[in-house]
């Protein structure tokens, strides 16, 4: 069990690091540009992109865990992470309809 957890830990660490670095750098440049050219397309793309990357990171983490548990045939935890994914999808659908 310890080995499996270490594999998952490494996988999730990569997802978290990628999300943090990509969103942080896009938002930092976007924020600076917003003071110079507030209405520019580049500013909107960088700020919007940074926010979306950050929003997607926890979802990507749950998806990665779900796939990893499926791969390990740990059905019990695959079920739990699958439910979390479904609840996050429901939030997304709610945001479209409410």
């Amino acid at each position: 069990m310890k080995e499996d957890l270490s594999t998952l830990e490494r996988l999730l660490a990569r997802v978290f690091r990628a999300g943090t670095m990509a969103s942080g750098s896009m938002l930092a440049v976007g924020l600076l540009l917003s003071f110079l050219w507030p209405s520019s397309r580049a500013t909107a793309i960088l700020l919007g992109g940074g926010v979306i990357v950050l929003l997607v990171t926890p979802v990507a983490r749950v998806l990665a865990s779900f796939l990893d548990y499926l791969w390990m045939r740990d059905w019990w935890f695959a079920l739990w992470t699958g439910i979390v994914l479904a609840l996050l999808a429901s939030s997304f659908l709610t945001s479209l309809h409410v």
Partner: protein
Amino acid sequence: MLVTPALAAVTLGVGVVAGLMGAMLGIGGGVFLVPFLVLVAGVPFKAAAAVSLMAVIATSTSVSAAASSTGRHLINFRLGMVLEVATAAGGLLGGVTAHMLSASTLQTLFGALALVVGIAVFRRAKQEEPRTDCDGDIGRLGGRFIDERGFEVCYRVKRLPMGLVVSFVAGNISTLLGVGGGIIKVPVLTTWCGMPMRAAAATSAFMIGVTATSGAIIYYGHGDLIPALGAAAIIGTQAGSIAGLATSRRVKAEGLRRLLASVLVVVALLMLQRGLR
């Protein structure tokens, strides 16, 4: 709303404090950001909640990235994923609760709960960290990690139903008040569910990203987020999280529990004052 460099700089500074506390205590920092943005910066509540929830996700990802890279296994992934079901369900049903209770009633209830939990944490701050024999059975959801002195620490999780109920409530208030809910989860995990402070803080930081995402998606979809203000808060919390992790290693678990209890009492009084106004 126009985000001036001065407003962005102050928001970034508050974000640093939120990230610092988040990394040390496993809370997202929304309890600091929302009152600042609403009461000091004059930002509408929904926009403040949207910015705060994004900052909570930033704290969660930064702390989890660092904690899962150290090789100390501080995050209990299995327990975190089980509690996340309750927390995500609570977040999704936040809209239902919003129709049943007014914002002021919710703040009063949250304040009262935080005060009771804060006092309980203060009273038990000096207790020994819970641990189990590492050669024995730690259960399906128990954990093992390397502490700050390099020793392996093992623990069993107790009172899981209580953890699930608290996670549901934390998820529920998260969407409505724009906070991560870690401020309630960490004390309950350490005081009643048998988790050592550092493991509870790291596991809570891991969970609050998902808790906040449920609400943040809804606010973002409705166009409530002010991108430049969100960017300032997120950059601040990311920087604060890195500083918080470095500081946390030098503070004893008892010190962290006392700090958590103090933050809980301050937040409780702030919420009660806003709720009873």
